[in-house]
């Protein structure tokens, strides 16, 4: 009986942790501009348990697959400015797919290959692979090497709390190509003259920023109320 209760405690703990990760994923999708309903955003723990628990009370990660479509505002933000060569540009975003890897250790090329295959087969534009442990270096390389698709990787513990909700993290807003052009013209800048933000920056990873985009960072300022700065993603 004693061992049994320890068992269920353990299951409960893992369930709660995964629920928090799961919610952060939905928040992430919403912040990036995908279509996410309020029900999904505010999913209570009980519902999550009812939906995704296996008979032993542990979470069943194979059931936890998320798909989302981009909203119109997101499509607008990801559409390049029309140019001579490309007078009618298409938005560079599409359906996103999130997969939780059920293996508790040793995630290597095998699992990543399966994930890549899945993303490719279903013609998803972006894939997010979430694992419990770090993945091997070759797996990282394999994940980023899918031509024409964007595959990202997070660890469950990275998404346990939503870092952008922390009071010390300023608001990051992605600029559309049009806004970026206006900004550069107003300040008479080249984009290379802007301050920069790394693509591996935690917030940049959270927002799925791509090289060459510009984010507006809005901070609170004691003297000026609000203070905006702009950073170029490299």
């Amino acid at each position, binding site marked *: 009986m004693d061992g049994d209760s320890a068992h269920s405690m353990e299951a409960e703990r893992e369930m709660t942790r995964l629920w928090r990760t799961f919610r952060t994923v939905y928040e992430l999708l919403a912040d990036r501009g995908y279509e996410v309903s309020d029900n999904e955003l505010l999913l209570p723990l009980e519902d999550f348990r009812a939906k995704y628990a296996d008979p032993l009370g542990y979470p069943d990660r194979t059931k936890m697959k998320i798909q989302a479509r981009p909203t119109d505002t997101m499509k607008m933000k990801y559409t390049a400015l029309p140019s001579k060569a490309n007078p009618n540009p298409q938005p560079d975003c599409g359906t996103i797919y999130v997969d939780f890897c059920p293996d508790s250790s040793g*995630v290597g*090329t*095998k699992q990543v290959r399966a994930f890549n295959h899945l993303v490719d087969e279903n013609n998803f534009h972006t894939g997010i692979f979430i694992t419990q442990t770090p993945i091997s270096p070759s*797996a990282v*390389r394999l994940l980023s*090497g899918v031509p024409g698709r964007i595959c990202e990787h997070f660890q469950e513990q990275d998404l346990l709390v939503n870092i952008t909700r922390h009071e010390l993290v300023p608001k990051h807003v992605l600029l559309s190509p049009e806004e970026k052009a206006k900004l550069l013209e107003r300040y008479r800048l080249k984009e290379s003259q802007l301050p920069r933000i790394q693509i591996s920056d935690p917030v940049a990873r959270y927002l799925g920023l791509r090289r060459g985009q510009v984010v507006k960072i809005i901070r609170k300022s004691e003297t000026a109320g609000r203070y905006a700065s702009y950073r170029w993603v490299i």
Partner: protein
Amino acid sequence: MAQQGPSHALKTSLPETYAAVNAQQPPPSYLYPTQEEQDRYLEGRPGATQKHLEVALQHAQQIQTQKDAEDVILNRILELIELPSSPTADPAAPSQEDTVKLKYSLAPFRPSDYDNLILERNYEDLCGYALCPRKHRKQDTGPRGGFQFKYGPKGSGPGGRGRSVDIVSQDRIEKWCSDVCAERALWIRVQLSEKPVWERRAGDTRGTTILLLEEARAKRLKAPAATSSVSSIVNDLQSMGLGNRDRSGELALERGDTSLIRPDGRVDVNIRENQRGSQQVAGAPQMRPEDANGGSIEGYVPSERRGPDQDGDIDLLDQI
């Protein structure tokens, strides 16, 4: 790139073979834009010249070569996970096919890539040695793992008494199926070149000629004491021709030593003592007439002192 096989991809990533391949066929389209494309690119940019474009293209090509090489290595790792080809293969006597494949595949590897291969094999529940079909060791010692004592054979301790004891971390033991396989795998690792493929020179044989541990042992047994006798060492030294004057000149040239080397191996040194002029004794400064007013300051004469000079009257009075 897509229609070319993996063997061809290797060729484009190795500098030495790259040149040879390039000589036979036109370079792949992604490597170099045509003259027409280059001209069109330059048209819209008045500040850029053909030379700028060439430099940029060269750098781009270097980066592309690196990427290709890394892709090749990744593919090789994926292939080597599948080895050995039969589940009953004996790591001590691997099949000829597998051996050739392993040696061929490992050529562009660095030790860090090899470590990745071992890691991947372990994730697949295999021994880290690529020619071993067994599972790797797994010791259940609780959630944290940690360190273990490892005892050597009898008489391996300090001074030939007792047993040597090593403290080894768990994951280092768990990489392999046995100590023998660990030795085999690490023997290969030390033969790999630290230099990335794209920086290797054509004559660099390190890393391309890999011997398995068994082969190296067989070789050593076959040619016993060939290098150990004194006479053979003397012979070797003589054949190097260190005393040969022409050759040492060549060597110096190769080193970039341009100074004249004398036959006796020394430079001509002339010692010259610095002579001191001790005869003249400096005298005390003497008053000169122009010093009466303090003279000039670094060639500049203040105007108030110069003013009366121009009149021509008062300086006579002064001098009298």
